[in-house]
């Protein structure tokens, strides 16, 4: 009896898994290469390839986004009608670390499409700005500009290309640039397909950025034992200075 019970559960789980897989997998799948980005000593940013199969008559939108974080910013304003200064503090809550969106060639106007939740405009509902003010829209716009300049936010209409249609399906593919200033951590790649004014399927895969080797060791040391790390940094700097001093002394002595 007890064994039967286990088997039932097992069958049920399999059924649920197949069911779940079918619901998404039948119309849309997603390949992410690589799924893990290693940040080593000579790392200088990289690219990830996002591709898969989707319904031939639909349009696709791809988004790479990071976890929300709390950011402290300064607002600039004029003091005494003359000098531009940081005038007040701002807090942006739940601001995604990264927000990169790319759409299929037929989905140029993301904001008015059914996939508007993938646009910059959708950030308005996601990011909370404190203190509350009447020009939050403007502040958000400035924030997006600032993040765009750091290459962490972007919207690329038509950035996803399609392949040949076959059996009602077609392939899609895009390459996203991972800038070197993208922090180590967990990110998500979301893909949605739009048809007849609604999202008919969506799927997601995690992307991990991880420091490895030398950078990883240094980070661990710097955050793990700051005092020791500071003393070591100073010692090495002093030794480098003394060494250079000796090298140069040798030179001038030969004159």
């Amino acid at each position, binding site marked *: 009896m007890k064994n039967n019970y286990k088997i039932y559960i097992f069958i049920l789980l399999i059924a649920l898994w197949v069911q779940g897989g079918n619901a998404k997998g039948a119309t849309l799948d997603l390949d992410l290469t690589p799924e893990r980005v290693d*940040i080593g000593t000579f790392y200088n940013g990289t690219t990830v390839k996002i591709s898969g199969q989707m319904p031939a008559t639909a349009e696709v939108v791809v988004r790479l986004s990071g976890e929300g974080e709390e*950011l402290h910013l300064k607002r600039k304003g004029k003091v005494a009608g003359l000098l531009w200064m940081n005038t007040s503090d701002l807090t942006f809550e739940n601001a995604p670390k990264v927000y990169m969106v790319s759409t299929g060639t037929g989905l140029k106007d993301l904001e008015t499409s059914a996939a508007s939740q993938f646009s910059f405009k959708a950030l308005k509902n996601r990011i909370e700005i404190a203190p509350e003010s009447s020009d939050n829209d403007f502040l958000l716009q400035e924030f997006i*500009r600032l993040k765009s300049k750091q290459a962490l936010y972007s919207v690329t209409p038509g950035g996803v290309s399609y392949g040949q249609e076959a059996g009602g399906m077609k392939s899609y593919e895009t390459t996203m640039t991972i800038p070197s200033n993208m922090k180590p951590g967990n990110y998500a790649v979301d893909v949605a397909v739009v048809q007849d004014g609604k999202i008919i399927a969506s799927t997601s895969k995690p992307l991990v950025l991880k420091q490895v080797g030398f950078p990883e060791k*240094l980070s661990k040391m710097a955050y793990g034992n700051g*005092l020791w790390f500071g003393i070591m940094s100073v010692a090495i700097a002093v030794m480098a*200075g003394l060494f250079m001093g000796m090298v140069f002394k040798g030179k001038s002595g030969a004159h």
Partner: protein
Amino acid sequence: MWHMYLPIAGNSVNIMTIFGLGGFVGLLSGIFGVGGGFLMTPLLMMFGIPATVAAASDSNQIVGASTSGTLAHMRLGNVDVKMGVLLLIGGILGGTVGVQLIKILRAMGNADFLISLTYVLMLGGVGGYMFIESLQSLKKKPASEVLDISAKPKKPSSWAMMFKKIPFQTRFEKSGVELSILVPLVLGIFVGVLAAIMGVGGGFIMVPVMVYLLRMPMHVVVGTSLFQILFTCVNVTIMQAKTNHTVDFVLAVLLLLGSTIGAQVGTKVSKKLKGDQLKILLASLVLLVCIKMLAGLLMTPDFMIAMKGGH
């Protein structure tokens, strides 16, 4: 190729760029006896390093450059250790006061305005005075004493009179001056307060203070300043690494490679230049930074918001 990832700054940089930056600032450090923090931090920020990491890693780099520079100047007999130690003690006391002052100012709001104002006034005042004074003394030889009168010749004598009356008079052999030990101590405190408010090492204030208020010869000023900066930056580096984790070791080492070489070359250049030439060059540099800051304050910024942190 040629790129290296900075684990604390969280960005990668071109090795040659950072090496070059280090060399340039090390050169200035060796010539003028300034740490160069007031130049390096903004330059590093231009290459995508967060302000806090730029400032802390730079102080780590200055440790190397000033060790190298102090050693070179010591061989040339340019370091007044007694004066340096007194200024250092004053500087540390002043720095502690300055940090508390900043806290109070921040609580009252608009600390940033006061910081920027201090920057522009100090840079403009110090740079302007040095520039005019050294220009006049450079011209002095062909011209005559007419120019000398406009250079406020009364000021040093009244200073000297006042200094003579302060107790604890002692002789500073290397600098060739006789002063109360209280004078460098108090001036050290003053520079320490300013440096803490402005978030820099204070070399570019300390140098004019030693030249004009302590009346030390320019070459001894440069060596003594470097000696004092060395210890200030050792302290800052360890504190920053301990409390804020903002010292990027890779960045500091890359900068060091350039700056220690630059510092040695700078010391040689410094020896070749006359005191007045040194002064006028430093004054021009300080004025340039002042103009850049002023322009930043007057021009409409590119972004109406900014990430917090740094200077």
